[in-house]
């Protein structure tokens, strides 16, 4: 049994290194000066340590604006998604209507259709609507992937809750809407929070639609803005890595909060992206 224990420790250390080395690379580079990066001095640990990438990023680039755009988009999309998917999830989980099972499969199939297939037609539709070049294009397009995914998750959460409580409320004179609002939603709160965080993360990290639908440098989101930082005349690797740190921290914080639910909700394949 000693051998197995040693092998497990070696495995944990190995996987830990594979996962952490790129993160350490990001963090360490974000604290180096331009010269340290260009001339490859003090490669592994930043010496001297500097905040200049963070201040430069904040004062000399449009990063604060991009961050605001990303935050607004993620919040609006999460709100839209949560309302729609609570209602549609409820409908599939609780209401009896013909074709209910096909609706459930259809939602799943919609989630599995990749954005790479939709971006050209969606671009044309949004251009017709005059929504391109503003965050409206993202408010309208992101729900095409967040709503099916969150609905699918919520159907599972709702079905796992006992229907008797809602029935009892309705026997006592509550309407269906009251039963949903006062009984089911509070009970399903953990699931709803988890699905909202998924929607937030998916919008926060989305790149393809944001790249195509918006050209105006003041309206782009962080992932697209990061690309502008490399393809300028100079490679701003330090600022880029500082931006990566700032962008990753909120998601990691949210995720620590729901790690357990997230793992349970993994099954529906959040590998998209």
């Amino acid at each position, binding site marked *: 049994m000693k051998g197995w224990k040693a092998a497990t420790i070696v495995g944990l250390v190995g996987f830990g290194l594979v996962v952490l080395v790129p993160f350490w690379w990001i963090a360490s580079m974000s604290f180096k000066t331009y010269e340290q990066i260009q001339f490859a001095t003090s490669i592994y640990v930043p010496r001297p340590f500097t905040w200049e990438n963070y201040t430069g990023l904040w004062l000399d680039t449009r990063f604060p604006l991009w961050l605001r755009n990303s935050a607004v988009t993620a919040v609006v999309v999460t709100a839209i998604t949560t309302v729609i998917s609570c209602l549609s999830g409820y409908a599939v989980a609780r209401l009896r209507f013909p074709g209910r099972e096909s609706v459930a499969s259809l939602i799943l199939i919609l989630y599995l259709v990749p954005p790479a297939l939709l971006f050209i037609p969606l671009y044309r539709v949004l251009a017709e609507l005059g929504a391109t070049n503003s965050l409206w294009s993202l408010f309208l397009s992101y729900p095409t992937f967040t709503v099916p995914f969150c609905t699918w998750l919520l159907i599972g959460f709702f079905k796992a809750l006992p229907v008797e409580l809602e029935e009892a409320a309705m026997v006592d004179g509550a309407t269906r809407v009251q039963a949903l609002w006062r009984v089911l939603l509070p009970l399903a709160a953990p699931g709803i929070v988890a699905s909202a965080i998924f929607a937030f993360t998916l919008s926060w990290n989305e790149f393809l639609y944001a790249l195509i639908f918006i050209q105006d440098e003041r309206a782009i989101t962080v992932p697209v803005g990061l690309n502008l930082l490399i393809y300028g005349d100079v490679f701003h690797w330090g600022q880029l890595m500082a931006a990566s740190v700032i962008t990753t921290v909120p998601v990691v914080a949210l995720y620590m909060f729901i790690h357990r639910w997230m*793992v349970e909700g993994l099954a529906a394949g959040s590998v998209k992206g």
Partner: protein
Amino acid sequence: MGYPERWVGLRNYIYLANDDTFRTVVRNSLVFTVVSVALKVLTGVAMALVLHATWRWRNFFRGLLLLPWITSTVIIALTWRWMFDAFPGRGFFNSVLLDAGLISRPIAFMATPEGAMAAVIVANWWRGFPFFGVSYLAGMQSIPGELYEAASVDGASAARRFWHITLPGLKHVIIVTTLLTFIFTINDFNIVYVMTRGGPGTATQVFATYSYEVAFNALRWGRGVTISIFVVPLLIALIPLVSRYLLRERAA
């Protein structure tokens, strides 16, 4: 925007069938997808075995190893691009190899077709394997312990227990993760676009990046859509299969 629209029948399809770049794109997409998915399955099983054998802080390690999966793909692609880079300032691999005395000057990994393909595969693998590992861990935890005890009593070695109990128990989840990831990887845009833009030349051009290139840089909208339509038959075959597995899982 682009050229005036008119009915062209099947001309876009015929054009692509004779387009050498498109053939390279089909091959690249398959190499990228098959190699990434195979690596993810193998490392995923290894990661699950390690986590399953972890006797303390298992949730902590599981959370730690999942970090790549919640990080923005654009950030992952940028970071790996730099880690493989030769200039400016030497990437991670060049620094380590130089300091270990294994090479005498930096190698430009991303400048060769094979190096660039390997780099995008590694980045994609790194982002994806934790999801596999966590899914397989959940699968392993649902295999009843009595099966292993009975097999041990009968004198089955660890390797045979793995082969005859663990792998069959994971069959379902391996199929689901493989199919799902296949669908999303063959249509991947972010990693390839950010790391190589399909280059050098067309060495890493895949369906999504080529479709983008043709539609938005060459302004050939119809042809761009046609490229993505080529993946549809594959999706029509795979999507119902995945849905069936996922729906069955939910019914159970």
